[in-house]
């Protein structure tokens, strides 16, 4: 079953009287358990597409279904619910909340889904241990390295056991060593049959994915499968 189904999706930004098509007639379907890379030059619409898949934005036209649910028909609260339950975000700049420590940051998605305090604390601890931060639970983001912060972000994205994990240039701010750590965690997730969509500029990263989608000016330019894996 396809987790994500996109048909003739367009996103047009209007600035003043100028219309900027950021996404143009995108058709895309992502099966469960796939590892997809999205590549393309700057401004080609990668982040826009990812935000669309992540229900942070609505398409101007076209159809988008996630887990069989048509997003265009949902209201703001229902979109929030989908983001909270079915989607895990990993950002280039980590986007952890500075006031909260590691555990509390990982708990955040569960907080909004009404988990009990004990349940969410337990699960957060589990996830932190899984990404190798079992001994840093009470640290603030500012007390962690970039790679560690990104690992917290990955743990957080897994908190509600989402249908799909979306990562926008997850290694963009990292040196190659900690970048590699992050990528190996993503590989692990893939091995656990999580569905992954990763936006990247890096050929090496896209090689790890099963399929690479090349965007150009808001269009899918070409798709290639990496069978050698």
């Amino acid at each position, binding site marked *: 079953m396809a987790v994500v189904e996109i048909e003739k999706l367009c996103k047009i930004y209007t600035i003043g009287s100028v219309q900027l098509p950021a996404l143009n007639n995108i058709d895309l379907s992502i099966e469960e358990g796939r590892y997809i890379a999205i590549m393309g030059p700057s401004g080609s619409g990668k982040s826009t597409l990812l*935000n669309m898949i992540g229900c942070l934005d609505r398409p101007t036209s076209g159809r988008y279904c996630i887990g069989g649910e048509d997003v265009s028909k949902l209201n703001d609260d229902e979109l*929030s619910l989908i*983001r909270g339950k079915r989607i895990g975000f990993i*950002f280039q700049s980590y*986007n952890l909340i*500075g*006031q909260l420590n590691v555990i509390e940051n990982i708990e*955040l998605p569960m907080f*909004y889904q009404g988990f009990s305090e004990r349940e969410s604390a337990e699960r957060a601890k589990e996830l932190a241990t899984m990404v190798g931060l079992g001994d840093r639970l009470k640290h603030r983001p500012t007390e962690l390295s970039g790679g560690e912060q990104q690992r917290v972000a990955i743990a957080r994205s897994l908190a*509600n056991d989402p249908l799909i994990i979306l990562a926008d240039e997850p290694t963009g701010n990292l040196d190659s060593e900690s970048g590699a750590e992050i990528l190996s965690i993503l590989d692990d997730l893939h091995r656990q049959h999580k569905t992954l969509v990763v936006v990247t500029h890096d050929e090496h990263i896209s090689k790890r994915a099963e399929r690479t989608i090349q965007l150009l000016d808001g269009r899918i330019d070409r798709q290639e499968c990496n069978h050698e894996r």
Partner: protein
Amino acid sequence: MHWINVKKTVKLGIKSLWMHRLRSTLTMLGVVFGVCSVIAMLAIGEGASQEAQEAIARLGSTNLIVETVKPPQEQTDTGDTQTVRKYGLTYADAESIRNTIPEVEVVVPIREIDQEARYLNRKAAIKIMGTIPWYTEISPVQLTRGRFLSSTDLHHQLAVCVIDDQVARKLFTFDDPLGLDVRIRGSYYRVVGIASKTAPAGMSDTFGTQAAKTIESTGGVAGNIYIPLTTAKSRFSEFAYQISGGSRSAEKVELQKIIVKVNSNEQVLSTQKIIVALLNRLHKKQDYNIVVPLELLRQAARTRRIFSIVLGSIAAISLLVGGIGIMNIMLATVSERTREIGIRRALGAKKRDIIIQFLSETLLLTLVGGMLGIILGSLIPFLVTYFGHMPTVITGSSLVLAFGISAAVGITFGLYPAHRAANMDPIESLRHE
């Protein structure tokens, strides 16, 4: 939003407020002073009005107090020799009030004389109240020892007296006054009773008629000594001599007061009219004045209402200023935390969750501010009472009101910033730095 999360939301609110301690404290001050002024003002207002009402109530709501006033006129500039000015209430007035007005229950004439009383080598400035036994009907005299004046005392012009405990303390520091003799102007008066804190001796003066005299009578006179009216009449001259600018003048006043008691509150005003009509016929000059406690009570209520409105407006303005300060800071906080809001929204927070988060922060600020305001506002009345010698009353309802107001301020001025936070576009917020 689940109930479990309330605790966490509050904890989070405290955390982020604590991170900006100075800012939070300064913001809170507006509410603190607002609430503080509400409570202090209400306490002072309530104290003043209760004092007034108690004073009036002590005069008796079914009483009418007719008192002698010096007519304002004819400083007859003949300038020389002796002139005797006769004015004021008379025994005849008291008689005719009693005989002509059927609603009247009791009429009590009072003759007041400022004198000096002695016992052994001690002396005290006192006020002699020459009156009749029915004085107890119009004023609640509480006897701690002995009895009040009797009709036998009155009939036989006996030299007996009832002293109040102020006098007792001053003259008979260690002795039991009962049965001992007080000396006034060379005559001895046997003490037959001791009254505790007698009420309206100079009370009616409190209400504007003779303000100057009030100060004198409370400041200079230690207390009251009650003697039979007949005794007072026979032993003390009704003439008072004054020397002013070389010429001697004399005044003759028979009675200082006539207190009239009617059956019920409804008859007070009609009786007042009849008394005025009656006295106007008997007196050529305006040398008397009627104080109606019931009327005063009503006036006091009116004054209190105006007082409350004025104080309320002042407090409301200060709270408004405090509230605007809070809104200002919360708007700054929201724009500072735009990115955090974006993150939360991306992780599944609904608009409602964001609203609750920021509203609870504002509420925390105002409620803690309100609490501090209540504490501070409860201290101020004590200081006012202690240093300003003004009565104050902190009512429970004023505390509840102040707390409610601070909550209302929090919600009113927190709602807009919270709404603004909730309605930000998630993507834009995430991109914000």
